[in-house]
């Protein structure tokens, strides 16, 4: 990398306009080039010295600008608010200003409220999905007079297929255990008969 290009990139870097990959190239160059390191140091000194010397604005100038602002508002027919009425808009108050009028700290109430709303939304959404009403409407569904929808028929078919698959798996297990599937399943002969007493209420 040429020194002039490196110095251009140093200026861009200070302005925050340098991509990361170019910065790495610049760092490599600076590690090898004493002249550019000196240039960089003097550039920094120049920046600091320049910025240190800006004097404050006189109160009279500031007042003239505010007077012009009042005059412009009056020309537009906008009523000028009394001084101190909007102290919350001063630069130091920042984003907490709206909450300060209510004597509440910022971020105290809106975050839990947002979280509660999200949880409620999830619960309602989940409930609606799990208790999907039929096409005939909620009344028919409650009275049991609804007909199966296409969605429910699809679920039934899938359940039947699952049953067949499970039966197939149990047949395979019997084959592995040398039990002929056509033979009746072994029965526990000494199985005691269960007697149930009738309960008199």
């Amino acid at each position, binding site marked *: 990398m040429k020194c002039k290009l490196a110095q251009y990139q140093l200026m861009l870097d200070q302005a925050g*306009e340098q991509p990361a990959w170019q910065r790495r190239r610049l760092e490599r160059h600076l590690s090898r080039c004493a002249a550019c390191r000196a240039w960089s*140091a003097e550039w920094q000194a120049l920046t600091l010295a320049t910025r240190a010397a*800006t004097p404050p604005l006189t109160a009279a100038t*500031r007042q003239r600008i505010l007077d012009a602002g009042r005059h412009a508002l009056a020309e537009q027919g906008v009523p000028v608010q009394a001084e101190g009425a909007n102290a919350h808009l001063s*630069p130091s108050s920042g984003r907490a200003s709206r909450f300060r009028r209510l004597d509440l700290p910022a971020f105290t109430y809106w975050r839990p409220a947002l979280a509660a709303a999200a949880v409620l939304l999830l619960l309602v959404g989940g409930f609606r999905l799990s208790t999907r009403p039929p096409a005939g409407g909620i009344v028919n569904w409650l009275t049991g007079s609804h007909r199966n929808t296409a969605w429910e028929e699809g679920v039934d078919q899938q359940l039947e297929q699952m049953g067949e698959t499970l039966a197939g798996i149990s047949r395979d297990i019997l084959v592995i255990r040398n039990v002929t599937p056509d033979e009746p399943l072994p029965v526990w002969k000494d199985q005691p008969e269960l007697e149930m007493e009738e309960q008199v209420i």
Partner: protein
Amino acid sequence: MGQPEKKWIAAYRRGDVEALGSLVEHYRRPLFGFILRMTDSVADAEDVFQEVWFRAIRHLDSYREKKFLSWLFRIARNLLIDRARRAKLIVPLSGTDMEATPWEARLASPAPGPDRLTQGHDLAPRIEAALKRLPREQREVFALRMEGGLPFKEIARLQETSINTALARMHYAVTKLRQELKKDFKDYSGARS
């Protein structure tokens, strides 16, 4: 436009003059610093600064740019050019030979005023004197970057040129300042270390 600017401008439009004060204070340092570098004295700089705000207040409804500060810099730059043009019209009546000098070179005199020499860091008045000897475009890039904190992309847009030209102008300016302030830089570095 950032959030505080929006809020202050909206509040001012509703009649809150204090919000205008906040806006002026928020942009005082970059804007006033830039104008100071481009004028002869603090008094001149204050005149231009307040004129920038007078114009901004008058044309606040027509403000459409993304960045409020860039808009203020544009107004300031136009004002500074107008002042230099007016100076050009007045100067021939005084019978001097300044007509031959381009207006850019007469935007500010080469030497800082006495009020400027007595303030700030020791190095600052020397930088200022050296800056006055730079061509206007180079000084403008230097002031917009160092005082205004504008990125080179924005400076190029303001000067209606390419980013490479803006970088080259800055590089020339820094190179000339380095030559003129060689001894001061050594003292400054020694004092800081």
